[in-house]
């Protein structure tokens, strides 16, 4: 019997229902881990992430949930990237969990090694969580990740996807969405920004490995995210969690809008929330209050070229088609 909150629980109507982080009217056991005054704060204050960093927020959300699920018996492995750079300027560390960093490409391999070492010691109580950005995961570390999946290593790999190489100057990654402007996908020519047809849907590729568990999440749906981390920790073998984390710097958005943008990504269907087990999609999170994809794109300067005069309504329509396809694929408009 787990005291873990799973999906938004069916409690009598409570002011903010169960959408807010906490709620004084809810049993503490039913609140999110982030509402817990004794939460681990896996990523502590004093880190040097930008104001309003979605990745810093997501890392704390994920680690605190994992910490709760494992009773604190957790080792983390970190790829190179923003997350590593802003959290560990030598000799300071923001991490309040055991934490290893090796290279940009090999977090999945190092995590496999940690899992193997623990197995060799007979320590099946300690769980391994690897984390990296979309560059380290979807591009540079992808072979290592795929190998980890294929070998069946007992690791939860978490990708914080901000859609580019942000701390090196906002270059395009394999996770940069189409039409987004980056330093290497400029907003010029008939096909401005990142090209349609390039880039990878890492979560679906993970599903194609037929691994035990794959899920997507955002920093705007905390309960959903915590439930997925908890679910992942109930399962052994390779697991993958892909978390959308808006980046004020790279996206050209106000620092205070980070959560709102993640919410709009989900509400527009542009970033679908789903879970898959052993190669099959087993659940998706229906959209509550659908918005056109334009509402998600407009506040972001990386899409500003779509909305000037004369603008590119044709490109916006192609992006809407991406969202529509997600909505159809994961049945996101069904009554939830």
């Amino acid at each position, binding site marked *: 019997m787990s005291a873990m909150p799973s999906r938004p629980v069916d409690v009598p109507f409570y002011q903010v229902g169960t959408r807010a982080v906490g709620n004084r009217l809810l049993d503490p056991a039913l609140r999110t881990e982030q509402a817990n005054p004794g939460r681990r704060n896996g990523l*502590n204050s004093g880190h040097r992430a930008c104001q309003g960093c979605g990745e810093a927020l997501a890392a704390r959300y994920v680690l605190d949930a994992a910490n709760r699920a494992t009773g604190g018996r957790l080792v983390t492995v970190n790829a190179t990237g923003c997350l590593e750079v802003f959290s560990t300027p030598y000799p300071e560390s923001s991490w309040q969990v055991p934490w290893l960093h090796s290279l940009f490409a090999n977090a999945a391999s190092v995590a496999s090694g940690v899992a193997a070492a623990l197995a060799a010691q007979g320590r099946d109580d300690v769980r391994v969580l690897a984390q990296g950005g979309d560059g380290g995961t979807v591009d540079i570390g992808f072979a290592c990740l795929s190998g980890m999946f294929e070998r069946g290593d007992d690791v939860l790999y978490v990708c914080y996807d901000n859609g580019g190489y942000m701390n090196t100057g906002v270059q395009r990654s394999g996770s940069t969405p189409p039409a987004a402007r980056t330093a290497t996908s400029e907003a010029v020519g008939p096909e401005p920004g990142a090209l349609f047809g390039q880039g990878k849907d890492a979560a679906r590729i993970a599903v194609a490995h037929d691994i035990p568990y794959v899920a997507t999440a955002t920093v705007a749906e905390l309960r959903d995210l915590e439930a997925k981390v908890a679910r992942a920790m109930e399962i052994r073998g390779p697991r993958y969690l892909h978390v959308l984390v808006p980046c004020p710097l790279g996206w050209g958005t106000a620092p205070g809008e980070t959560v709102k943008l993640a919410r709009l990504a989900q509400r527009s269907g542009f970033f679908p929330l789903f879970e898959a087990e052993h190669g099959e999609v087993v659940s998706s999170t229906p959209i509550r209050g659908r918005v056109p994809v334009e509402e998600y794109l407009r506040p972001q300067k990386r899409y500003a070229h779509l909305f000037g005069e004369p603008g590119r309504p044709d490109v916006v329509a192609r992006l809407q088609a991406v969202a529509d396809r997600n909505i159809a694929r994961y049945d996101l408009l069904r009554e939830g």
Partner: protein
Amino acid sequence: MDRKPFAITLDIASSLANHTGSWRSERPVYVDGLPPCSNACPAGEQVQQWLYAAEDGSYETAWRRLVEVNPFPAVMGRVCYHPCETACNRGQLDTAVGINSVERFLGDEAIARGWRLPDPEPPTGKRVLVVGSGPAGLSVAYHLWRRGHEVVVHEASARPGGMMRWGIPEFRLSREVLDAEVDRLVAAGVRIECDRPVTDLAGTMAAGRFDAAFLAVGAQIGKRAGIPAGQAARVLDALSVLFSVAGGERPQLGRTVVVYGGGNTAMDAARTARRLGAEEAVVVYRRTRERMPANEIELQEALAEGVQVRWLSTITQVDEGRLTVERMELDEQGVPRGTGVFEELTGDCVVLALGQDVDRTLLDTVPGLQVVDGVVQVDASMMTGAPGVFAGGDAVPSARSVTVSIGHGREAAGHIHAWLEPSQRREPATEPAAAVPVSFEQLNPWYFSDAPHAVRPRLEKGRLTGDFGETVLGLDEGTALYEARRCMSCGSCFDCDNCYGVCPDSAVLKIAGAHGYEIDLDYCKGCGLCAEECPAGAIVMEPEPG
């Protein structure tokens, strides 16, 4: 000395050494905004605050917050036209919070459980005479009593309550409820002397050694209209009808009753006529529905009971069993004017509900007290031209409702207290800034769960015109709690932990054992996520000082 690990030259340190708060150009500040419900309440209730207490089942705390302002929650929960609900921001999300029904639940709960009013301040030795025991008179008496003054209420009629007893029909306000709330006041120590009309104010004050007086004489004389009427025509006054019914009589008005006027009294009279056996009750009103002074709720309830309304009509002649009406039209200014088109209606009697005047019998004997346009003139401190003589309720210029009168009583008590205890008078240093209520746009409504109409508790209609029993029933605890919990807490923190959760820098701290949060300025970078994600709009970003 410990040897450091290989290739390590510095001690391992925590990032807490890095005070990222120095990056900040704006800082989040918790505010207490003015909720629109509280802003709209004529009685001055802090609605959001008592709802907050009710939300977790602390009904007595909620009721105590209510009676800080209003000694009659159970009455108010029945007769108030609840401008709070009209102002409620939740109306822009789905439907307004049923504030009035929660108030009634709390008021009834207090009666059922015998909760007592708070203790008064120590006696001041000052005595105040209150003339009239309607809502304004009893409210001022309550608030003066709480400040330690001795209060005696003189009531001309045989029972206390004023319009709450004699004007508002029983089907809107049960007399047991009224009696319970008035009795509680009397039990606490407010003296009400019935059958004591005051005809000589100065004499009464001297005899009773009163230091101040509050006149709450109401407006109880029905206005007459010079309608030509035949010998056998029956023309009655609405207030007289309501008074006699309230006194237990059941006057026979006839099969078809015509009520002339468009205010709340007209609605009450028409609904009363239906209960007295009239098969038809027709309201004749000279303007349109949009311009009708009656409250929309009253009109709705009247229509639901089969009351008919003839808009844009005036009565020009009344005869036995029939009357003549003229069709009206509105000119550009909205003033009705005759069209010369006449019609005949049947009607066994005509009940006039054309507004009420103040009885000047006492007023004209008070030196310095001025009556203009039929109402008592008072200054900003609610004092009449006679020093130490204050006035409020329907007798002064006002919107004339129970709620407004209760607000008058509370306000006047403050002024009378300042008059009696000049040493404690606090002059406001500056005019308070015009408070702007929190708007829907300042909230983050995403977080509020959908409360679909189907789930919203609907007040059951009782048997409608069969008798004088209350037509609107109370809520059970479950639905009252549900309603309270629909409050969006506009402008006030309600401990949802969102700020605590969404801070990427863990720079929002819970205050141990207390309500609310504080910002750790050592680490807050000023990103504004907490303010943006606060459901209640209770955090604002302010420029960093200096």
